Protein backbone atom coordinates (compact mmCIF):
# COMPACT_ATOMS: atom_id res chain seq x y z
CA UNK A 1 0.00 0.00 0.00
CA UNK A 2 2.81 2.27 0.99
CA UNK A 3 4.56 1.44 -2.22
CA UNK A 4 1.45 2.28 -4.23
CA UNK A 5 1.18 5.64 -2.55
CA UNK A 6 4.78 6.43 -3.31
CA UNK A 7 4.38 5.57 -6.89
CA UNK A 8 1.06 7.26 -7.31
CA UNK A 9 2.41 9.43 -10.03
CA UNK A 10 3.81 6.50 -11.98
CA UNK A 11 0.56 4.55 -11.67
CA UNK A 12 -1.34 7.59 -12.86
CA UNK A 13 1.01 7.98 -15.80
CA UNK A 14 0.61 4.30 -16.72
CA UNK A 15 -3.16 4.60 -16.60
CA UNK A 16 -3.03 7.61 -18.92
CA UNK A 17 -0.77 5.73 -21.30
CA UNK A 18 -3.10 2.71 -21.35
CA UNK A 19 -6.10 4.92 -21.98
CA UNK A 20 -4.22 6.76 -24.70
CA UNK A 21 -3.17 3.54 -26.40
CA UNK A 22 -6.66 2.03 -26.31
CA UNK A 23 -8.33 5.14 -27.64
CA UNK A 24 -5.66 5.57 -30.33
CA UNK A 25 -6.08 2.04 -31.63
CA UNK A 26 -9.85 2.51 -31.58
CA UNK A 27 -9.69 5.78 -33.48
CA UNK A 28 -7.14 4.57 -36.01
CA UNK A 29 -8.76 1.23 -36.71
CA UNK A 30 -8.61 0.41 -40.44
CA UNK A 31 -11.92 -0.16 -42.25
CA UNK A 32 -13.31 -3.67 -41.82
CA UNK A 33 -12.98 -5.90 -44.85
CA UNK A 34 -15.87 -7.83 -46.30
CA UNK A 35 -14.79 -11.04 -44.57
CA UNK A 36 -16.07 -9.94 -41.19
CA UNK A 37 -19.30 -8.45 -42.51
CA UNK A 38 -22.57 -10.31 -42.66
CA UNK A 39 -23.73 -11.52 -46.07
CA UNK A 40 -26.99 -9.76 -46.92
CA UNK A 41 -27.91 -11.67 -50.07
CA UNK A 42 -26.99 -14.94 -51.74
CA UNK A 43 -28.28 -15.92 -55.16
CA UNK A 44 -28.11 -15.34 -58.89
CA UNK A 45 -27.37 -11.94 -60.41
CA UNK A 46 -30.85 -11.75 -61.93
CA UNK A 47 -32.49 -12.40 -58.57
CA UNK A 48 -30.32 -9.68 -57.03
CA UNK A 49 -31.29 -7.19 -59.73
CA UNK A 50 -35.00 -7.70 -59.02
CA UNK A 51 -34.29 -7.22 -55.31
CA UNK A 52 -32.28 -4.10 -56.11
CA UNK A 53 -35.06 -2.65 -58.27
CA UNK A 54 -37.52 -3.08 -55.41
CA UNK A 55 -35.46 -0.99 -53.06
CA UNK A 56 -32.30 0.58 -54.46
CA UNK A 57 -30.88 2.34 -51.40
CA UNK A 58 -31.27 -0.70 -49.17
CA UNK A 59 -28.35 -2.55 -50.73
CA UNK A 60 -25.68 0.11 -50.73
CA UNK A 61 -22.51 -0.98 -48.94
CA UNK A 62 -23.91 -4.45 -48.18
CA UNK A 63 -22.00 -7.67 -48.74
CA UNK A 64 -23.56 -10.03 -51.27
CA UNK A 65 -22.69 -13.40 -52.80
CA UNK A 66 -23.70 -13.54 -56.46
CA UNK A 67 -23.72 -16.42 -58.88
CA UNK A 68 -23.55 -16.04 -62.63
CA UNK A 69 -21.82 -16.88 -65.87
CA UNK A 70 -18.57 -15.03 -66.57
CA UNK A 71 -19.22 -12.92 -69.67
CA UNK A 72 -16.05 -10.86 -69.70
CA UNK A 73 -12.99 -10.19 -67.61
CA UNK A 74 -10.02 -7.86 -67.33
CA UNK A 75 -7.11 -7.64 -64.94
CA UNK A 76 -9.20 -5.78 -62.37
CA UNK A 77 -12.38 -7.82 -62.36
CA UNK A 78 -15.03 -10.02 -63.86
CA UNK A 79 -18.45 -9.33 -65.39
CA UNK A 80 -21.22 -11.78 -64.50
CA UNK A 81 -24.10 -12.26 -67.00
CA UNK A 82 -23.31 -8.85 -68.57
CA UNK A 83 -25.11 -7.39 -65.55
CA UNK A 84 -22.72 -7.13 -62.64
CA UNK A 85 -19.10 -6.03 -62.62
CA UNK A 86 -17.09 -7.50 -59.74
CA UNK A 87 -13.87 -5.66 -58.99
CA UNK A 88 -11.02 -7.27 -57.07
CA UNK A 89 -8.94 -5.44 -54.50
CA UNK A 90 -5.74 -6.11 -56.42
CA UNK A 91 -4.89 -6.72 -60.04
CA UNK A 92 -4.67 -10.41 -60.86
CA UNK A 93 -4.64 -12.78 -63.77
CA UNK A 94 -7.90 -14.62 -63.83
CA UNK A 95 -8.08 -17.93 -65.59
CA UNK A 96 -11.72 -18.64 -66.17
CA UNK A 97 -13.58 -18.92 -69.45
CA UNK A 98 -17.34 -19.13 -69.82
CA UNK A 99 -18.19 -20.78 -66.56
CA UNK A 100 -20.38 -20.20 -63.59
CA UNK A 101 -18.80 -18.46 -60.64
CA UNK A 102 -19.85 -17.52 -57.16
CA UNK A 103 -18.41 -14.16 -56.14
CA UNK A 104 -18.56 -12.41 -52.80
CA UNK A 105 -18.24 -8.65 -52.77
CA UNK A 106 -19.49 -5.31 -51.49
CA UNK A 107 -22.28 -3.71 -53.50
CA UNK A 108 -21.39 -0.11 -54.34
CA UNK A 109 -24.11 0.94 -56.77
CA UNK A 110 -25.75 1.01 -60.18
CA UNK A 111 -23.55 2.39 -62.91
CA UNK A 112 -25.84 4.11 -65.41
CA UNK A 113 -23.03 4.91 -67.84
CA UNK A 114 -22.47 1.23 -68.57
CA UNK A 115 -25.84 -0.02 -67.36
CA UNK A 116 -24.52 -2.51 -64.83
CA UNK A 117 -24.24 -3.06 -61.11
CA UNK A 118 -20.88 -2.80 -59.43
CA UNK A 119 -19.24 -4.71 -56.59
CA UNK A 120 -15.82 -4.10 -55.10
CA UNK A 121 -13.43 -6.04 -52.81
CA UNK A 122 -14.53 -9.20 -54.58
CA UNK A 123 -13.43 -12.71 -53.72
CA UNK A 124 -14.09 -15.74 -55.90
CA UNK A 125 -15.82 -18.35 -53.77
CA UNK A 126 -16.18 -21.18 -56.25
Amino acid at each position, binding site marked *: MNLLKKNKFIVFLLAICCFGYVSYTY*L*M*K*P*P*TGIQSKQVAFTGTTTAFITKFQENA*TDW*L*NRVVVLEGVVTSK*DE*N*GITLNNQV*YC*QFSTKQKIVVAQQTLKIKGRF*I*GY*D*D*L*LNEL*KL*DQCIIQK
Partner: protein
Amino acid sequence: MEGRRILRKLNLMKKVLFFLFFSVTISGVSQTYFTRTGSTNFKASVTAFEPVESTNKSTTVILKTRTGSIAAQLFITAFQFRVALMQEHFNENYMDSNKYPKAVFRGEIADFNFTEASIQKEYNLSGTLTIRGVKKEINTTATVTLDGDKIILSSGFTVAPQDFDIAIPKIVRKKIAETIHITLNYELVEKK
Protein backbone atom coordinates in the same frame (compact mmCIF):
# COMPACT_ATOMS: atom_id res chain seq x y z
CA MET B 1 -14.52 1.64 -128.70
CA GLU B 2 -17.85 1.94 -126.95
CA GLY B 3 -17.14 -1.19 -124.95
CA ARG B 4 -13.84 0.24 -123.76
CA ARG B 5 -15.52 3.42 -122.52
CA ILE B 6 -18.08 1.45 -120.58
CA LEU B 7 -15.32 -0.68 -119.12
CA ARG B 8 -13.41 2.42 -118.02
CA LYS B 9 -16.54 3.86 -116.46
CA LEU B 10 -17.16 0.63 -114.62
CA ASN B 11 -13.60 0.63 -113.36
CA LEU B 12 -14.01 4.16 -112.03
CA MET B 13 -17.27 3.25 -110.36
CA LYS B 14 -15.56 0.29 -108.76
CA LYS B 15 -12.90 2.59 -107.39
CA VAL B 16 -15.47 5.04 -106.05
CA LEU B 17 -17.48 2.26 -104.49
CA PHE B 18 -14.38 0.78 -102.92
CA PHE B 19 -13.40 4.16 -101.55
CA LEU B 20 -16.90 4.78 -100.19
CA PHE B 21 -17.03 1.35 -98.59
CA PHE B 22 -13.62 1.81 -97.06
CA SER B 23 -14.36 5.23 -95.61
CA VAL B 24 -17.65 3.98 -94.17
CA THR B 25 -15.93 1.10 -92.43
CA ILE B 26 -13.32 3.44 -90.99
CA SER B 27 -15.86 5.84 -89.53
CA GLY B 28 -17.92 2.89 -88.37
CA VAL B 29 -15.13 1.71 -86.10
CA SER B 30 -15.97 2.05 -82.42
CA GLN B 31 -14.80 5.41 -81.18
CA THR B 32 -15.45 4.89 -77.52
CA TYR B 33 -12.81 4.34 -74.90
CA PHE B 34 -13.72 3.44 -71.36
CA THR B 35 -12.67 2.10 -67.98
CA ARG B 36 -14.51 0.79 -64.95
CA THR B 37 -11.58 0.99 -62.62
CA GLY B 38 -10.22 4.50 -62.99
CA SER B 39 -8.55 5.99 -59.97
CA THR B 40 -9.72 9.29 -58.51
CA ASN B 41 -7.90 10.68 -55.51
CA PHE B 42 -8.57 13.60 -53.22
CA LYS B 43 -6.32 15.27 -50.69
CA ALA B 44 -7.56 17.61 -48.00
CA SER B 45 -4.64 17.19 -45.65
CA VAL B 46 -3.25 19.82 -43.33
CA THR B 47 0.35 19.37 -42.26
CA ALA B 48 0.86 18.19 -38.69
CA PHE B 49 -2.54 16.49 -38.61
CA GLU B 50 -3.68 13.03 -39.66
CA PRO B 51 -3.68 13.03 -43.49
CA VAL B 52 -7.17 13.41 -44.94
CA GLU B 53 -7.00 11.67 -48.28
CA SER B 54 -8.54 8.81 -50.14
CA THR B 55 -8.62 7.06 -53.48
CA ASN B 56 -11.56 5.69 -55.40
CA LYS B 57 -10.42 2.90 -57.69
CA SER B 58 -13.82 2.14 -59.19
CA THR B 59 -14.40 5.22 -61.33
CA THR B 60 -16.25 4.58 -64.59
CA VAL B 61 -15.10 6.82 -67.46
CA ILE B 62 -16.31 6.97 -71.06
CA LEU B 63 -14.45 9.00 -73.67
CA LYS B 64 -15.72 9.54 -77.20
CA THR B 65 -12.53 9.99 -79.16
CA ARG B 66 -14.22 11.58 -82.17
CA THR B 67 -15.75 14.47 -80.24
CA GLY B 68 -13.62 14.50 -77.10
CA SER B 69 -16.68 14.36 -74.88
CA ILE B 70 -16.11 12.65 -71.58
CA ALA B 71 -18.34 11.28 -68.83
CA ALA B 72 -17.10 10.01 -65.49
CA GLN B 73 -18.95 8.63 -62.54
CA LEU B 74 -17.95 7.27 -59.16
CA PHE B 75 -19.62 5.93 -56.05
CA ILE B 76 -18.90 7.83 -52.86
CA THR B 77 -18.91 4.64 -50.77
CA ALA B 78 -16.09 3.22 -52.87
CA PHE B 79 -13.62 5.77 -51.48
CA GLN B 80 -11.20 3.76 -49.35
CA PHE B 81 -9.63 5.43 -46.34
CA ARG B 82 -6.86 4.20 -44.10
CA VAL B 83 -8.92 4.89 -41.01
CA ALA B 84 -12.40 3.41 -40.59
CA LEU B 85 -13.72 6.29 -38.52
CA MET B 86 -12.67 8.82 -41.15
CA GLN B 87 -14.42 6.80 -43.85
CA GLU B 88 -17.56 6.70 -41.74
CA HIS B 89 -17.55 10.46 -41.15
CA PHE B 90 -16.83 11.11 -44.81
CA ASN B 91 -19.82 9.03 -45.90
CA GLU B 92 -22.31 9.96 -43.21
CA ASN B 93 -21.51 13.50 -42.11
CA TYR B 94 -19.94 15.20 -45.11
CA MET B 95 -20.95 13.45 -48.32
CA ASP B 96 -24.27 11.99 -47.23
CA SER B 97 -23.59 8.98 -49.45
CA ASN B 98 -26.92 7.30 -48.76
CA LYS B 99 -28.79 10.25 -50.21
CA TYR B 100 -26.24 11.15 -52.88
CA PRO B 101 -24.43 7.92 -53.78
CA LYS B 102 -22.68 9.29 -56.90
CA ALA B 103 -20.42 12.02 -58.10
CA VAL B 104 -20.67 12.70 -61.82
CA PHE B 105 -18.54 14.68 -64.25
CA ARG B 106 -19.63 15.51 -67.78
CA GLY B 107 -17.42 17.55 -70.01
CA GLU B 108 -15.30 17.93 -73.05
CA ILE B 109 -11.67 17.82 -73.98
CA ALA B 110 -11.22 20.86 -76.24
CA ASP B 111 -9.92 20.22 -79.79
CA PHE B 112 -9.34 16.59 -79.01
CA ASN B 113 -7.68 14.89 -81.93
CA PHE B 114 -7.13 11.24 -81.41
CA THR B 115 -4.68 10.71 -84.24
CA GLU B 116 -2.69 13.69 -83.09
CA ALA B 117 -2.37 12.40 -79.56
CA SER B 118 0.62 10.46 -80.74
CA ILE B 119 2.53 10.12 -77.51
CA GLN B 120 1.60 12.78 -75.03
CA LYS B 121 -0.32 16.00 -75.27
CA GLU B 122 -1.94 18.50 -72.98
CA TYR B 123 -5.53 19.58 -73.57
CA ASN B 124 -8.01 21.90 -71.95
CA LEU B 125 -10.69 20.00 -70.08
CA SER B 126 -13.91 21.65 -69.04
CA GLY B 127 -17.22 20.41 -67.77
CA THR B 128 -19.66 20.14 -64.93
CA LEU B 129 -18.97 18.26 -61.73
CA THR B 130 -22.00 17.21 -59.72
CA ILE B 131 -21.52 16.26 -56.08
CA ARG B 132 -24.38 16.05 -53.58
CA GLY B 133 -26.70 17.29 -56.31
CA VAL B 134 -24.78 20.56 -56.59
CA LYS B 135 -23.23 21.48 -59.94
CA LYS B 136 -19.91 23.22 -60.38
CA GLU B 137 -18.08 24.25 -63.54
CA ILE B 138 -14.57 22.86 -63.78
CA ASN B 139 -11.84 24.19 -66.07
CA THR B 140 -8.49 22.50 -66.03
CA THR B 141 -5.87 20.83 -68.21
CA ALA B 142 -5.56 17.14 -68.89
CA THR B 143 -2.63 15.13 -70.15
CA VAL B 144 -3.51 12.46 -72.67
CA THR B 145 -0.95 9.75 -73.33
CA LEU B 146 -1.22 6.97 -75.85
CA ASP B 147 0.22 3.75 -74.53
CA GLY B 148 -0.21 0.94 -77.00
CA ASP B 149 -3.95 0.40 -77.31
CA LYS B 150 -4.65 2.34 -74.12
CA ILE B 151 -5.35 6.02 -73.60
CA ILE B 152 -4.08 7.33 -70.31
CA LEU B 153 -5.84 10.46 -69.13
CA SER B 154 -4.55 12.30 -66.12
CA SER B 155 -5.68 15.60 -64.71
CA GLY B 156 -6.27 17.50 -61.52
CA PHE B 157 -8.16 20.45 -60.09
CA THR B 158 -9.16 21.96 -56.80
CA VAL B 159 -12.55 22.41 -55.18
CA ALA B 160 -13.76 23.73 -51.85
CA PRO B 161 -16.21 21.97 -49.49
CA GLN B 162 -18.56 24.96 -49.55
CA ASP B 163 -18.87 24.65 -53.36
CA PHE B 164 -21.04 21.63 -52.69
CA ASP B 165 -22.72 22.84 -49.50
CA ILE B 166 -20.59 20.64 -47.29
CA ALA B 167 -20.50 22.10 -43.81
CA ILE B 168 -17.38 21.30 -41.79
CA PRO B 169 -17.91 21.49 -38.02
CA LYS B 170 -15.76 23.99 -36.13
CA ILE B 171 -14.06 21.31 -34.09
CA VAL B 172 -12.39 19.71 -37.13
CA ARG B 173 -12.10 22.77 -39.35
CA LYS B 174 -8.38 23.13 -38.68
CA LYS B 175 -7.75 19.52 -39.63
CA ILE B 176 -9.34 19.70 -43.08
CA ALA B 177 -7.79 21.88 -45.77
CA GLU B 178 -9.85 24.70 -47.26
CA THR B 179 -9.02 23.65 -50.79
CA ILE B 180 -9.27 20.03 -51.76
CA HIS B 181 -6.98 18.70 -54.47
CA ILE B 182 -8.50 16.13 -56.76
CA THR B 183 -6.29 14.10 -59.09
CA LEU B 184 -7.45 11.69 -61.75
CA ASN B 185 -5.66 8.89 -63.48
CA TYR B 186 -7.68 6.90 -65.95
CA GLU B 187 -6.46 4.08 -68.17
CA LEU B 188 -8.96 3.75 -70.97
CA VAL B 189 -9.31 0.85 -73.37
CA GLU B 190 -11.40 0.62 -76.51
CA LYS B 191 -14.99 -0.43 -75.99
CA LYS B 192 -15.95 -3.29 -78.27
